[in-house]
């Protein structure tokens, strides 16, 4: 009789569908290309459109000194690529004990809720936000997150823009103490192809994300109304990255081809041929 009770208890306590738990403190594993400090003109690997290239080339780092941008967070298009740790937690319905939402927050982000309660999409007239509006579902042990209603933002923090028409699909894949965070950006304005990136995090049980207070100050004494930018064809810094690492502008300038190995092979062949001469 006791044994039967044990089996019933075990059966009831086993979830019908395995749901991976992602809650915890996670530290970025910076052995990829997500170290966060790109050069001006380092657009390699980003399938940006012509419009995206033009805006990126006009970008000036002084732009971030404008009062409106000093305290901006990193938006969803970039934040998981940055060097910041992340805290993930879940909302659980007290009656059903179903997970109704996941949340993620980095050092320099706002709360990013990922709803799992079946709610409808907001109107397109609703505000767009840095984190966007996200819903999530389990696909096996992965979590799939779909995000809309994003603000204009950046893919890389050297001025590569993302548009407010862009959407984002993300996957969380946990393997023990490691979390792979995959992002797939779709942007009809500034990308010509979906951009897929992945970042690694490692569980960090003793981690605390510090506060990130911010006060707007006059960082640069400039006349009111000035917006720093480079006029077309005049940005003197665009070539520095390529010169430093001896990479042709064909690659550093970005575009879909710069994502694929064929371009790297072509550049190597060209260099080898030049060396032989």
């Amino acid at each position, binding site marked *: 009789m006791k044994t039967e009770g044990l089996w019933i208890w075990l059966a009831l306590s086993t979830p019908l569908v395995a749901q991976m738990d992602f809650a915890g403190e996670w530290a970025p594993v910076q052995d990829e290309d997500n170290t966060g400090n790109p050069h001006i003109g380092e657009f390699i690997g980003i399938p940006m459109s012509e419009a995206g290239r033009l805006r990126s080339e006009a970008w000036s780092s002084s732009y971030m000194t404008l*009062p409106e*941008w000093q305290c901006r967070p990193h938006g969803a298009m970039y934040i998981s690529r940055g060097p910041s740790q992340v805290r993930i937690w879940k909302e659980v319905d007290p009656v059903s004990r179903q997970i109704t939402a996941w949340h993620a927050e980095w050092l320099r982000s706002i709360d990013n809720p990922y709803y799992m309660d079946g709610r409808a999409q907001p109107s397109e007239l609703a505000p767009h936000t*840095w984190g966007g509006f996200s819903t999530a579902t389990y696909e096996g042990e992965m979590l799939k997150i779909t995000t*809309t209603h994003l603000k204009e933002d950046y893919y890389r923090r050297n001025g590569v823009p993302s548009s407010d028409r862009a959407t984002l699909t993300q996957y969380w894949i946990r393997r023990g103490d490691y979390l792979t965070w995959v992002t797939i950006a779709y942007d009809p304005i500034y990308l010509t192809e979906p951009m897929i990136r992945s970042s690694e995090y490692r569980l960090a049980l003793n981690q605390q994300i510090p506060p990130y207070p911010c006060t707007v100050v006059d960082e640069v004494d400039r006349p009111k109304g000035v917006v720093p930018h480079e006029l077309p064809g005049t940005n003197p810094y665009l070539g520095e990255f390529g010169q430093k690492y001896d990479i042709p502008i064909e690659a550093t300038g970005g575009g879909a081809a710069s994502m694929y190995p064929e371009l790297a092979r072509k550049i190597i062949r060209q260099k080898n041929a030049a060396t032989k001469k």
Partner: protein
Amino acid sequence: MIVNRTHWMLAGIAAFGMSSLGDGLFAQQNGGAQGRPANPPAANGEIEIVPVRGHIYLLAGAGGNITLSVGPDGVLLVDSGLAQYADKVLAAIRQLSREIDVEGQPVKSYAPPKPIRFIINTHVHADHTGGNEKLRQAGKTFTGGNVTGDIADAAEGAAILAHESVLNRMSASRGGEARTAADAWPTETYYKDSMKLSHFFNGEGVRLIHMPNAHTDGDSLVYFRGSDVLTTGDIFVTTGYPFIDLERGGSVQGILNALNYILDLVIPEFRTEGGTLIIPGHGRISDTADVAYYRDMVTIVRDRVQASIKKGMTLEQVKASRPTADWDPRYGSGDRFVEGVYRSLTAKK
């Protein structure tokens, strides 16, 4: 009418959330499958109302955006949409007035809705003033004493507030423009920097702030102080480049001055997001960051065109250089905007 259930919970640091506003009071809008959001509703008479904050709602689909303040004092509109959609707008307002619980009391579904008291025009264009006549006639001005004694029709229809330039343009047939019907004209105007409602309406102060020579020469921002909501008219839109109406006194520098004024006025809740909510002339509800991006775009294009003018380039040469190419996929052809900037910068002072 579609009333979205979205209710902005900008408390704390949440990006935004949704909650039910009541039991079955609102028809639920379902955006359908996940993925790229649909474009904002076009001006085709498909009316959509979205709660903004407190008593403030956005009504879209009737031309320019219409801001509604609906509450215990009645209804105040900022702009009135195109004339052909006035009946639909009126029906939507009446339905909303019946549905919402304006005083914390049970909904009185069969009670007649409170009247339209005020219409404020942000500027003169027909997609923002076209409904004036019909919507005014459906409303009522509360007055009394000597006013009603001396002016027999003082209480007839809602009051229409605007900058004096709007009245001047609507009441005059100049430059080939037909004069609009007198019932559509502003009934109360101002000619200096700003104008206030003389008393709270739906629990808050409402202020009109003139932005000189921006989209036109009669632009007003409308600021709802308690709700912290700002309506901009067409000085700021999320659907396209600014239209600089040079014939009606607009200028690129006026638009930039106005956008920078807006950025001085608004306060984000956290990290340039939320806080003061901004209802543009067309498009979605916005905040500080959205206006800042727009200001940046207008400034950069202005600077590019200015640099080309300094080089002696003609308008056609400037257009051919495509100074808006970075934003054209987002906002459409920039030719009209570039022409407006060019002519504005080269106009004789």
